[in-house]
């Protein structure tokens, strides 16, 4: 296998690395673009409310909006510490 990998890795051109990196960052940025402006604020306020009861860090609350044809779903994901 090592022998084959040697030839394979050599074929990863810089252009294909560029394409892959771009696809990831562009998809990520498009996702944020479509979200409502109030989302970061909402996330902060939710965090503050939950912190009244449980100690959690910033990254333990995820807020996302999923758009379907005729409605949007606000998805709230809170990870509580053990």
């Amino acid at each position, binding site marked *: 296998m090592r022998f084959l990998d040697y030839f394979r890795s050599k074929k990863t*051109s810089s252009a294909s690395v*560029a394409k892959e990196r*771009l696809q990831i960052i562009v998809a990520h*940025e498009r996702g944020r673009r479509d979200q409502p402006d109030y989302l970061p604020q909402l996330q902060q306020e939710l965090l503050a409310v939950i912190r009244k009861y449980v100690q959690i860090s910033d990254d333990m609350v995820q807020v996302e909006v999923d758009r379907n044809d005729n409605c949007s779903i606000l998805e709230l994901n809170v990870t509580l510490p053990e």
Partner: protein
Amino acid sequence: MARIIVVTSGKGGVGKTTTSASISTGLAKRGHKTVVIDFDVGLRNLDLIMNCERRVVYDFVNVIQGEATLNQALIRDKRVEDLYILPASQTREKEALTKDGVERVINELSETFEYIVCDSPAGIEHGALMALYYADEAIVVTNPEVSSVRDSDRILGILQSKSRRAEMGQEPVKEHLLLTRYNPARVQRGEMLSVADVEEILAIPLLGVIPESQVVLNASNRGVPVILEEDSDAGQAYDDAVARLLGEEREHRFMTAQKKGFFSRMFKGG
């Protein structure tokens, strides 16, 4: 009613002004009365590329602020009939371009011109927003390079949310991808993103591919829009792009590397 076309990119140095000069020249050459407006207040350069820098008396901001009439500010191109240039101000602040002011000028131009080409400044600040706000169509100039592609995607997002068409809920701005400084030999060696790669990422229709060419710098040195270099690959690629903009079907050229034989190397200087 004039058709308003913005030439934009987000990133600087990708060829917006070169493209604005060539597209507007190409439209006028085909008999469409065209005006090209430089929106880069404070850093005007379209006048240099179009070789009229010594004929600028009044500018876009003078007209907006009522210090000059449009007729006083418009510069008539000396090479192509039906082509006019409205230069940017070199001394004012970018904020001198107000939404109302720009709208008044565009409306007045709409009465006599068929095409209004807006040469956007780089960035996503005020000047760039003003350049794209009234657009019916957008030519997104992109280099096959990571930062340019990302910035183009950003500007597409802005076209889709902050243009007048978006704000009014009208039919969206028609988007065109123009890939510039394309080097087919490097693409073949896997050193440069291909046309297909960029199309796949940005997902907008391809207007044209302009090959990287020494002719472009030579033409700008002399103040000649490169589309007038009719024997050159870049000039012909711009001519194709203008034809497609007007609805003509043209096959894409200059997308594969030319294999040079021994003789052409010897006699055409490589």
